[in-house]
C-alpha cells in the first residue's frame, strides 16, 4: 500500500518541482496537486485538482482520495503573477492554513503534515541575538505582512499538533529561497538593476537553494531514516552568511543607499510601480539581517544541504546574467592596473 500525498500551492514553480520529485519516490502511489489556479507548468503524472484551500471543500478532497501525507506549500510572501494582491495572499496564507488544518483534523487517514514556513517568524531587530535557534523567542513580533502570516500559520499548526497527536508534524523554516526559478521576495529584489539599500546597515543574509528545499521537503514528507526524526520545527539554510554588500558585489549590481526613514517611501514608490514587493518586513530584513542556526536540521533531521549560502547565491547569480558592474570586469580592470605597474609584472 503506497502513500497518497497532497501538495498545496502547486501553481508555483517550487510546488510544481516538488510534485514532480515526490512522484519518483518508491513508496508514493499517488500525488495530488491542489491550487486555486491551474499551473502553467506540467506536474508529471500527478493529478491536479483545482480547489481553493480557503474553502471547506478541501476536506472533501482529503477524504475522497484517502490522503495520508499533506505537504502545505501555499504559504507565500508574494502574490502569484503580477495581478494578485497582498490581501489575497494573506487570506490564502492564514485562512487557507486554517481550513486545511481543519480538514486534516477531520480526516483520520492523515498521518503526516509538512508545512513550509519561513525564518521570517523570528523578525529582525537590533536587540535580537546574532543567531536564531528554533527556540529563540522573537524580541519584537512582526506587526504585519508575511512575517505575521507565518507567525499565525505556525500558531495554527501548533494547535493542530496538540489536537491530533497521532499526526507527525514537521515545520520547516526556510531562509530566503534562491535558485534559478524561485519567486521569493528576495529573488525579486536581487533582480533589480540597482539595489536600494539602507544607509549605514549591512545585513547578514542566509539563503537556501531551491534544490535543497525540494530535498528537505522530500525527507520531511517520507518515513524518517534510522537515527533521525522528521517531526518538529527545523531551520533550513545553507551554511555561512553573505553580507548584502558582498552579495551585491558578487552579483555585479550597484547599490544605492537610502537614509532609513526615506527607505519606506522608496519602497512604496517601487511597489506602486509594481517593480517588487518592498514590504516593511523586507526593509527590516535588509536593515538588520537574519542568521539562523541549522544544527537541528543536520543532527535531528539528518539533512545536509548541498549548497552553502554562497553557493546558492552563486547559482542564482549565474541564472540571472550579469549586472551593471560584473565582478569579472572589475577584477580584470584591477588586474590590468596591476599589470601596468612594475611590481605587478614582477609578481606574475
Amino acid at each position, binding site marked *: 500500500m503506497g502513500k497518497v500525498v497532497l501538495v498545496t500551492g502547486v501553481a508555483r514553480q517550487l510546488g510544481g518541482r516538488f510534485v514532480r520529485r515526490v512522484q519518483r519516490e518508491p513508496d508514493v502511489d499517488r500525488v495530488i496537486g491542489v491550487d486555486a489556479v491551474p499551473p502553467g507548468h506540467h506536474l508529471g503524472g500527478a493529478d491536479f485538482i483545482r480547489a481553493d484551500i480557503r474553502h471547506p471543500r478541501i476536506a472533501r478532497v482529503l477524504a475522497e482520495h484517502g490522503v495520508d501525507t499533506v505537504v502545505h506549500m501555499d504559504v507565500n510572501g508574494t502574490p502569484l503573477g503580477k495581478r494578485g494582491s497582498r490581501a489575497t495572499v494573506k487570506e490564502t496564507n492564514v485562512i487557507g492554513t486554517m481550513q486545511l488544518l481543519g480538514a486534516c483534523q477531520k480526516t483520520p487517514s492523515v498521518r503526516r503534515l509538512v508545512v513550509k514556513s519561513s525564518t521570517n517568524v523570528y523578525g529582525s531587530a*537590533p*536587540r*535580537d*541575538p*546574532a*543567531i536564531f*535557534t528554533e527556540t*529563540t523567542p522573537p524580541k519584537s513580533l512582526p506587526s504585519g505582512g508575511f512575517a505575521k502570516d507565518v507567525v499565525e500559520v505556525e500558531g495554527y499548526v501548533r494547535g493542530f499538533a496538540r489536537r491530533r497527536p497521532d499526526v507527525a508534524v514537521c515545520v520547516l523554516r526556510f531562509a530566503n529561497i534562491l535558485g534559478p526559478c524561485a519567486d521569493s521576495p528576495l529573488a525579486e529584489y536581487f533582480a533589480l538593476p540597482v539595489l536600494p539599500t*539602507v*544607509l*549605514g*546597515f*549591512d545585513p*547578514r543574509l542566509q539563503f537556501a537553494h531551491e534544490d535543497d528545499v525540494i530535498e528537505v521537503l522530500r525527507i520531511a514528507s517520507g518515513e524518517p531514516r534510522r537515527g533521525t526524526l522528521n517531526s518538529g520545527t527545523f531551520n533550513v539554510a545553507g551554511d*555561512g*552568511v*553573505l*553580507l548584502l*554588500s*558582498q*552579495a*551585491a*558585489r*558578487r552579483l555585479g549590481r550597484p547599490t544605492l543607499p537610502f*537614509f*532609513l526613514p526615506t527607505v519606506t517611501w522608496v519602497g512604496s514608490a517601487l511597489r506602486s510601480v509594481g517593480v517588487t514587493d518592498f514590504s516593511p518586513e523586507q526593509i527590516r530584513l535588509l536593515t*538588520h*539581517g537574519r*542568521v539562523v542556526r541549522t544544527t537541528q536540521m543536520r543532527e535531528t533531521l539528518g539533512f545536509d544541504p548541498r549548497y552553502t549560502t554562497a553557493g546558492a547565491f552563486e547559482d542564482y547569480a549565474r541564472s540571472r546574467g550579469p549586472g551593471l558592474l560584473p*565582478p*569579472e570586469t*572589475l*577584477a580584470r580592470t*584591477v*588586474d590590468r*592596473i*596591476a599589470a601596468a*605597474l*612594475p*611590481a*605587478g609584472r*614582477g*609578481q606574475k
Partner: protein
Amino acid sequence: MADAKVIPFGGEEPRSKRGKGKRPGRARTSRMSSSLAPVPPQRYLDRAEDARAAQAASEEHAAAAEGARGQAAEAAQPGGWDRKLAHGLSFLRRRITGEYEVDEFGYDEELTDQVLMSALRPFYEKYFRVEVKGIENIPDKGAALVVANHSGTLPVDGLMLQVAVHDHHPADRHIRMLAADLVFMLPGVNEVSRKLGHTLACAEDAQQLLERGEVVGVMPEGFKGIGKPFSERYKLQRFGRGGFVSTALRAGAPIVPCSIVGAEEIFPMLGNSRTMARLLGIPYFPLTPSWPWLGPLGLVPLPTKWTIQFGEPIATDGYPAEAADDPMLMFNLTDQVRETIQHTLYKLLVQRRSVFF
C-alpha cells in the same frame, strides 16, 4: 550578561578612516616604527609564511628592523612601495568582487586586520600611547572571557582593548567584544561594529562565541560605567546581574580581569542633560568642558596616557554543571572579579605619574 554594554566610538571615526584605509600596508608601518610594540618579531614571520595578507607588513618589518634575516631575505628587496601597491590592489580586487568571508556574526577578519585596525592603531599608539601589561594572561588556546571596566563617555576603551589584544597577543588572538543594543540601532556604527566582530551583549551570543573557543570581551558595568560623572572616576559600578559569570561557567571558560586606566579622563563628564537624553532616546547626554559647547570639536578626546592590565585568569572549570544556577556562587565570583579589577585600578593609579604622561 544582559546588562553588559559597550558602545563603540561614535562611528564617525572608523567610518571616516575606511576610505583612507584602502592602502593597508601604509598604516602597518606606523606600528613597526613604534617603540611601544613589545611584539616578538617571529610573529610577523609566521604570518608571512601562511598569509598573503600580511606579506607586505612582514617585508616592511624585515627590511626596516632586521633586514639580514634569512627567512625574510627574498622579501627584503628594494621597491617596497610597488609591492605594497600590488598587495593593495589584490586586496581591492577581492573586496570589489565580494570574494571574502565573514563569519555568522558578521566578523570580517580581512577588513578588520587590513583596514579597521590600521585606522585605530594611530589612536592606540600615538594618541593614547597605550601600555599593555599581562597580555599573556589571555590563554593561547581556547575560550576566555575578558572582563574589563568601562568608562570614558564614548566606548573608546572597548576599541583600544581590541587593538591591544590584536596587536600584542603572542598567539595572535582576536577579541570579540560584546556591545550594547544601542550600537546595533545606529546606522554606520552597527555596520562597522559587526565587521569588527562585535556582537550583542546577550547570554546566547556570548555562549556561542565561548563554545567556539573565542576570546570574548565584556564590560559588565554597561551604561552605568561609561556614563558616570567625572567625580566618580575609577569607582567601579555594579556589575549588572553577574550574568557574565554564569555564561563563563557554562562554557568552562576562564575569566580574565582587565583594568583600563586612562579612559576615564578622555571626556570628563561634568554633567548629564537628562532632557536631551530623553529627547534623543539615549541613556545619557554628556556635558563635558568642550561638548556640546564647541560643537564637533567637543568630540576630540583628551590625549591621556593609558594602561591596560590583564590580571591572572580565574578558572571556572572546576565547578559542577549546576553551579551556573547557584546565585550565591555567582555573587561571590562576580565580587571576586570586581574586587580584582578595582584593586588593580588603584594600584595602577598610584603608579601613574600624571594623567597625560
